[in-house]
């Protein structure tokens, strides 16, 4: 039995125990912190999966929110339309089984459809160089969003109510654990070292027998799958989704987490995701401290202003993020200009 798999199993069991015992209390008394906790979990899934593409494989995807949207709307469609039919047919089975089953199926469907989207986007796009790939993935994200915006069945601009507030700690952090396990188990194998070679030096990688395109597509599809799952979890968490929630800024959100964490460090990215999720709270607290001049208060409370400044400062001072490898950043074989 593989040690890694054992750890994952133990972690999931532990989560189940925690969830069964404390979830009710948390959701009730500490509702606010509970919400933040769930959001962190979802962001961890998004960031760790994107890290596989941006961090380990060195590709630059700016459309992660698009895959999240596919997952969210697929999950919503399942729960709103198909699941009631199934549940009606299985009317013998009780409450919790039905709701959890609904969530699991909607997650799987969301993930699979998002993975398919990842395949469709990935295969043609991955011949493109860095900045071009960034723009194309951005474009695809926007196309997905615009398509949803123009689809009445999915609620268009009005948004879509999702039947069933089923997301809980177990599923959120369980899937986060599976996501982390997936990325780490892939990367830390002879096969998976190939991802890093694609990032380091594509020409040398090909010369050593690595099919770089296959690796890029694989990373894309796996990442999209988990983004879809994150979307499904999100849909059943907020119980209401709109296309605006999956726009370019959302993609940038996740990208910042990956960069802050250090591209290619799963641990760093997890920490960064948690940190950036609670950042608005930190800023709010900071803004109201006694020694903060009123002029800055308003600025601090504006999350996007702080975000963008953080991004700029980070790139200027420490582009490798918290846990990244500084020389890996400098050595990337992307065309630079002489001084």
């Amino acid at each position: 039995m593989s040690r890694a798999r054992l750890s994952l199993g133990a972690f999931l069991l532990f989560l189940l125990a925690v969830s069964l015992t404390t979830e009710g209390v948390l959701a009730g008394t500490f509702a606010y912190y509970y919400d933040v906790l769930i959001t962190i979990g979802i962001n961890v899934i998004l960031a760790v999966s994107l890290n596989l593409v941006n961090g380990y494989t060195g590709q630059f995807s700016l459309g992660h929110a698009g895959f999240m949207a596919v997952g969210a709307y697929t999950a919503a469609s399942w729960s709103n339309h198909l699941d009631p039919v199934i549940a009606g047919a299985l009317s013998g089975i009780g409450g919790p089984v039905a709701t959890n089953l609904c969530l699991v199926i909607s997650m799987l469907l969301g993930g699979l459809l998002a993975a398919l989207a990842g395949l469709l986007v990935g295969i043609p796009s991955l011949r493109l160089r860095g900045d071009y790939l960034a723009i194309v993935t951005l474009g695809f994200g926007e196309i997905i969003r615009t398509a949803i915006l123009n689809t009445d069945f999915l609620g268009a601009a009005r948004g879509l109510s999702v039947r069933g507030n089923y997301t809980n700690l177990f599923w959120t952090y369980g899937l986060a654990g599976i996501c982390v396990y997936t990325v780490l188990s892939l990367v830390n194998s002879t096969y998976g070292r190939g991802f890093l070679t694609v990032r380091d030096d594509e020409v040398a990688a090909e010369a050593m027998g690595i099919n770089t395109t296959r690796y890029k597509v694989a990373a894309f599809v796996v990442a999209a799958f988990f983004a879809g799952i994150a979307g499904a979890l999100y849909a059943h968490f907020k119980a209401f989704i709109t296309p605006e929630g999956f726009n370019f800024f959302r993609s940038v959100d996740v990208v910042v987490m990956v960069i802050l964490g250090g591209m290619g460090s799963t641990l760093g990215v997890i920490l960064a995701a948690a940190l950036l999720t609670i950042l608005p709270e930190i800023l709010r607290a900071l803004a109201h401290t006694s020694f903060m001049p009123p002029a800055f208060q308003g600025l601090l409370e504006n999350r996007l202003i702080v975000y963008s400044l953080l991004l700029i400062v980070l790139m200027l001072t420490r582009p490798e993020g918290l846990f990244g490898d500084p020389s890996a950043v400098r050595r990337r074989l992307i065309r630079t200009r002489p001084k």
Partner: protein
Amino acid sequence: MTSKPLELQNCTIRFGGLTAVANFSMVVGPRELVGLIGPNGAGKTTVFNMITGVYRPTEGQVVFNGERLNGLKPFVITAKGIARTFQNIRLFPSLTVFDNVRVAFNVHLAHGPRHAWWRGAKFRAEEAQIEAKALELLKIFNLDRHRDVMCKSLPYGDQRRLEIVRALATTPKLLLLDEPAAGMTPTEKKNLMRLIEFIQEQFDISVLLVEHDMRVVMGICRRIYVLDHGIKIAEGAPEAIRRDPKVIEAYLGEEPEA
């Protein structure tokens, strides 16, 4: 290891209006150590790139083991048994010494992402096997004690050796070495010469060597091709090449005084 030789048949490659290599033919036989020399810019690395699939010949054919390689992607050609090193060392900077070699085993890997995820017995067995083989290779070249060092921390000579080890990990039948002696001291070059001969015997492969240092080439190559401005100007045994007036003129730019 017997194999039909590598053959370049009248290969020409043009980039826009520039003809980098014209009508170049060459043969590398099984277990042969062949040299490819020429002044700077002659097109030697371009020939390598044609063989390994980085460039596609505009005209002519590259045949290996009876198979036509034109148009195949580099990783496919590597799987068919041709490995190379680079003029400017191109190791994978974010990987350790061990991982640089280990990743080259991907070319003949039995397991895929599914197995890496599930981590079953078969997967773990193959991983153990790969680790053993990689360490064995590193040991032969005296690099095993550095196995967990980041490859870019190695001294220059060790990095060059590592690049060769990495190429050998793909179990090639033909090894292309692109100026492996560049930047080496005379002692290091002597060691390199012995190393290349050792590799050729121990691993039973052919070696095609591009090199600037005449002593290295003349010392170990059985046959030499000379390229100038993309055209073959001489071929033959080292002694003949050494005295060939066309070769001397190409390198010095003028006829030697009689």
